[in-house]
C-alpha cells in the first residue's frame, strides 16, 4: 500500500477528511467561528468598547491567539451591529510593509480608498495612486446587512513605485479626510491593525508615537483595535508601556490574553477535528484526553504551539496507520516529530536552543557563563538572532524568558 493510501485510509478510519490543525487561524471569520473557543470575559470587555468607537489594545504572548481573538471579535461586532440595524465599516489590516507611521497610514488608506472609490472621487484618485505601488494586497469583503467587514493583507514594499511618480502628498491629511468621509457614510468606522506585535518593538513605539493624534481623533465614532505583545525583557516594562499609553489616553481598554487552560485547548482540538468530520463529535479522537493534556503542557498552553504539535503528531500517526494516538503510541510519534524538527536546524541555532534550555531560558538577566557559551559579551548582541527565532523556535514567557520549543528533543539523545 502506498504511503498516501495508508495515510488516507487511517484518516478515513478516524472519521476525518484531512488533518485539520493549523498553526495560524483561518482568516475567514465564518470558518474561524467554528474553531474559536473561550475568551468570553475578554470579548465582553472589548465588544462594547469598540462598538462605542473607543480604542482597544490587545496584548499577549506570541502565539496566544491574538489574531484569532481579533478576527472573531470583529466577526461578532459585525453580526451584533448588523442585528441592531446599524451601519458600520470595519477594516482589518493583517500585515503591511514598513515600520513607519507613513507605512501605517498607507496601509489604512488602501482598503479605505477602495471601499469609498465608487462614491468619492478623491478616494478613487487615492486608490489609483496606491495601486501603482508595487504592493500586493489580498482582500476579503464580508457584508452583513449594513456592516462591511474588509480584511486586507498587504505585501511588497511602498518604496517600489515611488520612482514612477506614485506619490501621495500629505498622506496623513488625506487619511483623516477619507476617514471623515467613511464616517459620514457609515456612521462608525472600526480599524483593526493586527501586525504591530510582529514588528520590532522600537518601530511600534515610534509608529504609535507618531499616530497618537490619529488614535485620539474621532473617539466615539472611530475605534482602533491594535495588537501589542508582551515585551520579551521584563513584565515590568510592559506595565510601564501600558501606563505610558494609558496616560496618553490612547486606549480605553488594554486586554491581556492569558495562556489557555488545558480544558480550553481540549475544546479547540475538538472544534478543529469537527471541521474535518462528517458528523460533529464532543471528543478529540483519535487523540485521547490524556495525550491532549500532555500536548497542552508541552506547548506551554500556547494555542499556536498546541495546534502545531497536534498537526505534526496527527499527520505522523496517520502515516504510521495507528489506531489511536494514546499513551502507548504517542511517545514514539512525538519522538519522530522531534527528530524531524532537529534535523531542520542549523548547528548554531541548535546550539543556542540547547543553551537556552540548559540555562532555564534566555533573558536580559542571563548570566555571564551563558553569554560566554554563546560567544557574546552582551545580551543586546543576541537580539537580532533571538528576534528571528522568537516564535516557533523560542517561546517568549510572561517573565521575559525565551524558552526553546517543545519540539527540541532531549540533549543527550541528539548531541553532535
Amino acid at each position, binding site marked *: 500500500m502506498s504511503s498516501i493510501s495508508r495515510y488516507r485510509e487511517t484518516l478515513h478510519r478516524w472519521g476525518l477528511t484531512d488533518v485539520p490543525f493549523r498553526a495560524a487561524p483561518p482568516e475567514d471569520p465564518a470558518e474561524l467561528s467554528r474553531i474559536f473557543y473561550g475568551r468570553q470575559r475578554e470579548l465582553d470587555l472589548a465588544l462594547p468598547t469598540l462598538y462605542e468607537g473607543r480604542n482597544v489594545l490587545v496584548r499577549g504572548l506570541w502565539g496566544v491567539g491574538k489574531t484569532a481573538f481579533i478576527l472573531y471579535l470583529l466577526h461578532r461586532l459585525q453580526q451584533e451591529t448588523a442585528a441592531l440595524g446599524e451601519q458600520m465599516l470595519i477594516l482589518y489590516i493583517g500585515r503591511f510593509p514598513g515600520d513607519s507611521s507613513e507605512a501605517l497610514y498607507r496601509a489604512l488608506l488602501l482598503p479605505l480608498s477602495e471601499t469609498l472609490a465608487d462614491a468619492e472621487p478623491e478616494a478613487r484618485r487615492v486608490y489609483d495612486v496606491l495601486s501603482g505601488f508595487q504592493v500586493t494586497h489580498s482582500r476579503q469583503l464580508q457584508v452583513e446587512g449594513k456592516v462591511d467587514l474588509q480584511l486586507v493583507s498587504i505585501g511588497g514594499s511602498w518604496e517600489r513605485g515611488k520612482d514612477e511618480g506614485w506619490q501621495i502628498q500629505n498622506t496623513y491629511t488625506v487619511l483623516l479626510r477619507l476617514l471623515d468621509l467613511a464616517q459620514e457614510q457609515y456612521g462608525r468606522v472600526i480599524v483593526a491593525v493586527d501586525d504591530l506585535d510582529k514588528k520590532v518593538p522600537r518601530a511600534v513605539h515610534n509608529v504609535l508615537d507618531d499616530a497618537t493624534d490619529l488614535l485620539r481623533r474621532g473617539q466615539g465614532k472611530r475605534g482602533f483595535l491594535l495588537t501589542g505583545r508582551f515585551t520579551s525583557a521584563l513584565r515590568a516594562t510592559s506595565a510601564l508601556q501600558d501606563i505610558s499609553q494609558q496616560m496618553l489616553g490612547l486606549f480605553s481598554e488594554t486586554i491581556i490574553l492569558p495562556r489557555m487552560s488545558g480544558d480550553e485547548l481540549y475544546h479547540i482540538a475538538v472544534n478543529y477535528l469537527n471541521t474535518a468530520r462528517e458528523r460533529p463529535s464532543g471528543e478529540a479522537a483519535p487523540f485521547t484526553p490524556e495525550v491532549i493534556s500532555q500536548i497542552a503542557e508541552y506547548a506551554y498552553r500556547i494555542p499556536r504551539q498546541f495546534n502545531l504539535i497536534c498537526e505534526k503528531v496527527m499527520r505522523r500517526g496517520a502515516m504510521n496507520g495507528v489506531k489511536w494516538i494514546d499513551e502507548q503510541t504517542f511517545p514514539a510519534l512525538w519522538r519522530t516529530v522531534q527528530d524531524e524538527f532537529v534535523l531542520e536546524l542549523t548547528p548554531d541555532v541548535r546550539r543556542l536552543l540547547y543553551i537556552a534550555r540548559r540555562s532555564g531560558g534566555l533573558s536580559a538577566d542571563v548570566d555571564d557563563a551563558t553569554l560566554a557559551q554563546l560567544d557574546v*559579551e552582551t545580551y543586546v548582541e543576541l537580539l537580532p538572532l533571538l528576534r528571528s527565532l522568537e516564535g516557533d523556535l523560542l517561546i517568549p514567557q510572561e517573565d521575559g524568558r525565551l524558552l526553546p520549543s517543545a519540539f527540541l528533543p532531549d540533549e543527550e539523545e541528539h548531541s553532535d
Partner: protein
Amino acid sequence: MQGETIEDLMAARHTGRFRVVRQHKNTSDLWRQYESGLKQLLTKLGSDHLRSTELLILERRLLENLARARLYGDTSTSHIERAQILDALDRLALETVGRKFLALPSDSTAETVAFTQGPVEAVSFTRDPATGTIAFVHHEPIVIGNRDDMAQRLLEAVHEAHDAIELYGRIVAIARELNDQRAEALYSQDLGLALLNLAESEPAQSQAYLSRAAAALQQAIRLLDAIKAAPLLRARTRYHLGRCYHQSGRWPEAIALLEQAREVFARHKARPELAHALLELGQLYYQTEDFESAYIYLKDALRLFRRLGDTDGIAVTQEALGSMELQAAHPSDAIVSLREARQGYVALQRDERVRAVDHLLGMADRARQAAERMGATP
C-alpha cells in the same frame, strides 16, 4: 625658543624652523605625575599623621578615577571628579607639607630632552593620551615654548574648560593649515569634548556649547571617515557625538550614532566603551519610553560595569534601573538596585547623588509598605 607660542609655531611653518622636545614617556604622563605625587605625600605625611586617613581616602578615589579613565577614556564625569579630588589634595598638601599637591616634585629622573631641527611640513599632529594637547612630529612630542611652562599651561587648561577650548581651537586651526586631517580630527574631537563638558557645567549656556560641540564632533567624524581611521577611533567619536545629541534632545540621531558605536565596541570587545555606550543608550531608550530596550541595555551595561569593577558605572546604572523599577511599581526590586547605587555613590563621595538616591529609596520604601498593607506582592 623660550616662550614660544602656538602662533610662533605657525610662524615657524613659514620659516622652516621649529623646536622638538623629545620627552621620556613617563614624564609625559600627567596621571603618572599624580600617582608619583601621591606616593610622596604619603611618605611625607606618614601613617601616624592626623590627616593620613583623609589622604588615604583621596588616594583611593584618585587611583580609582585614573584607572577608570585609562580603561575607557576620560569621561566628563571622571574629569570633573578628578578636578575635585586634585583640589582637595592641593589643600591637604598645602596645609600639611606647605606645598600644593601639583607642585610636589616629580620622582621621575628618567627624563631625556633632545632638540632637533626639521622642516615643518613633516609635522604630524596627534593626541597625547596623557595631556591630550601635545603635538607630535613623527610620534615625538613637540612642546611649544618652555617645556615646564607648557606642561603647567596644559595642566591648567585641562582644569579650566574655557582655556582648553581656546587651546584646542587654535590647534585645530594649525592642523587645518598644515592639512593634517588626522590631527584636525583628533583635536576637533577634543574640542567637542571640552565643549560638551562646559555644556554640563554651565547649564545656562548649554545649548550654545552643545551646538558648537556637535559641529566640532561632526567635523571630526567627517575627517576620520575620510582618512579611514581605525574603527574604534571612529566609533568613539560617534559615541561622543551621540552623547552630544542626547543632551541636545536630538534623540533619534543620538540613538543611531550610539548604536553604530556600540556595534563596533562589541566587535572589538572594547568593554569599557561598550559599557558606557550601553548605559547611554539605556537612558535614551528610557527617555523615549522604549522601556523594553531600556531594560535590556541597562542590564547589559550593569553586567559589564561589574566585570570592570567600575563603581561609578554600577552606581549610575543601578540608579537608572531602580528608577525604572520604581515607576513600574516594583518597589522591592527598586530598593535592591537603589541600595547598590547608594553604596557606590557613598564610596565615591558623590554626596549629591547619594541625596538623590535617598529620595528615591524613601519613595520605594513607602510604595513597598503601601503594597504590603494592600496585600499585594511589592
